[in-house]
């Protein structure tokens, strides 16, 4: 029999560290230290809460995205859902004078409409991918453009201000000084994190992403899992949209524009592989936090306007280099998306 030498403790630690999604945390720590030095107010409680509040929408979207990315698919339409779902609710809730249709749905019904439409859109995506066999890139891109267009059509191009307390509560209220949106984000992160690691459903996601045929052979109902992953992704994007509408106290026509790019960035920075089967919520959260901290820091550090974008890009590259070198050292393995 083959006897393998025990891995060295340090190497094992390094691999576990990388495998469990902690790779990015040292970089985050570094940024926090830089932040504390260059901007005295960076470490104030209020600023830290601000950061969490600012990333909660992106965070929920990225968690949603990670469902489909884990199974080796993708869903660009999430960006459209973040804008469309709350807009649909808002036009049905707002009075005609405020740009609504005069249906004036009560708030709880509006919330249901937002989440329900988000789930339905996810269901449609799942249908297209599983049943019709469409390439998810094309079908969800088409849907993204369609949803963006639909936002214009249903809203007549006008944002709807203050659509109603029930719809905006989650994104604007505070409990004991903590924004509800932060609590929602953290709760979802913990719940989904546990499902990914410890629930049968999560294990099925990983298995499908890693080897779909083998997963099928192992008796997993692959089609159903894929389909449901799109629904969960849609629902979470809908929830993210509701939070954003709360945060802006309006359903804005451009709401969510560009968020899918940030979500992909956060996911990949957090160690999620676009090829599927790799990554976890601890990593996703680190990616989301990194993006939030960079944005916050660049404002607080008074980087001149023209240099903000370039600095963001540079920080992303440096962070990627640092983590890659660190994880190569510990695991000796080169990664590929």
């Amino acid at each position, binding site marked *: 029999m083959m006897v393998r030498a025990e891995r060295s403790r340090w190497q094992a630690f390094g691999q576990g560290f990388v495998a469990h999604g902690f790779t990015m945390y040292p970089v985050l720590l570094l940024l926090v230290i830089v932040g504390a030095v260059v*901007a005295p*107010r960076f470490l*104030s409680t*209020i*600023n830290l809460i*601000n950061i969490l509040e*600012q990333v909660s*929408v992106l965070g929920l979207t990225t968690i949603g995205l990670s469902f489909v990315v884990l199974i080796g698919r993708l869903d660009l339409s999430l960006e459209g859902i973040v804008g469309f779902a709350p807009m649909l609710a808002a036009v049905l809730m707002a009075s005609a004078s405020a740009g609504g249709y005069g249906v004036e749905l009560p708030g709880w019904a509006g919330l249901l409409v937002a989440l329900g439409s988000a789930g339905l859109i996810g269901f449609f995506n799942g249908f297209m991918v599983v049943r019709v066999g469409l390439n998810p890139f094309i079908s969800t891109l088409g849907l993204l453009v369609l949803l963006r267009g639909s*936002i*214009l059509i249903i809203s007549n*191009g*006008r*944002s*709807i*201000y*203050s659509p109603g307390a029930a719809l905006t509560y989650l994104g*604007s209220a505070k409990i004991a000084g903590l924004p509800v949106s932060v609590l929602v984000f953290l709760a979802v992160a913990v719940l989904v994190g546990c499902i990914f690691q410890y629930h049968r459903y999560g294990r099925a996601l990983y298995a499908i992403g890693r080897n779909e045929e083998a997963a099928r052979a192992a008796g997993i109902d692959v089609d159903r899992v894929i389909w449901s992953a799109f629904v969960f992704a849609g629902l979470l994007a809908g929830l993210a949209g509701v939070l*954003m509408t709360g*945060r*802006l*106290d*309006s*359903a*804005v*026509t*451009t*709401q969510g*524009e*560009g968020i899918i790019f940030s979500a992909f960035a956060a996911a990949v920075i957090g160690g999620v592989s676009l090829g599927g089967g790799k990554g976890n919520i601890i990593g996703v959260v680190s990616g989301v936090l990194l993006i939030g901290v960079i*944005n*916050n820091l*660049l*404002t*607080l550090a*008074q*980087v*001149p*306007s*023209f240099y*903000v*974008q370039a600095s963001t890009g540079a920080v992303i590259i440096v962070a990627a280099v640092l983590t890659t070198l660190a994880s190569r050292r510990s695991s000796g393995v080169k990664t590929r998306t």
Partner: protein
Amino acid sequence: DNSKVAIGFTPKFLKDDFQTLMLQLSLKAFADKGMTVVGSPDPNGDIAAQVDALQNLIANGANVIVFAPLDSAGIVPAVKRANEAGALVFSIDDAPAGGMVTATIRADNLDAGVQGATEMAKRLQGKECWAAKTCTVLELQGALTTPNGLDRSKGFADTMAALAPDVKVIQRPTEWTADMAADAAQNVLTQTPDLAGIFMASELMATAVNAQLKAAGRDAAVGDAASVIRVAIDGTPQGLQLIRDKALDATVSQPLSAYATKTAELIELVSGGGKIELGPRDDGQVIETPVGPQYQLKATLVTADNVDDAGLWANQLAK
């Protein structure tokens, strides 16, 4: 004492001349008055990023915030936060839909569209197609998701319908980009070779549109019987140069430098304990609105006749 003034500023984005100049002129105006700027992050067109940026600026000690809102509804929470924090709030170019501002400083975008349409209609009357009632005009809209894009389009389209009901208006959205404007202009010129006029919601499209006119052989100079009437909005140095070069008939000059200097003056006034008086001024008027006073600046129509007028901000800039 202006040294206690700590300003947080955000433009909409920094990728067109208008916003970029607004940032530069504003920072200069604040500096001239000895005010501190705690930050001027670029939200790059994202309303949520703009709200975040303002929130971060307040957390970082800004006691005055100045912004050009990307969305009048979406900006409200940032305004309210500033209100809670006791910071002065100045909204440039558009007013928020809620909260309280110290002042809004704006030129009416709807009016800019109206002025553009009025000039377009006036110039069309010199064309053969006017009498034959066969004129077609292309309206290159901004982004229909932005209030300015919608207002300029509404002002133009409604006025055209009223003043020139026989003129057919083809509307194309451009998302404020030159390349979408070029594609749209090219396609419409193919479909309607005798196109009589083009209205551009922003001058950023003008050079690209001219390149298309040239390619289609329709680049006759302004004043030529065969020329396509070109009217735009903004009044940047580039726009005025095109007018001088007879490559643009007219533009509506938005009072950009006044945005900057007026804002700085008003900050000085209010932070020094003063009050903004309502009523008419030489450069416009101040009216009361539900979200606070609004300083309405005049937008001037610029043609070859007044293109060298020293009062135009683009000409002041050159000096």
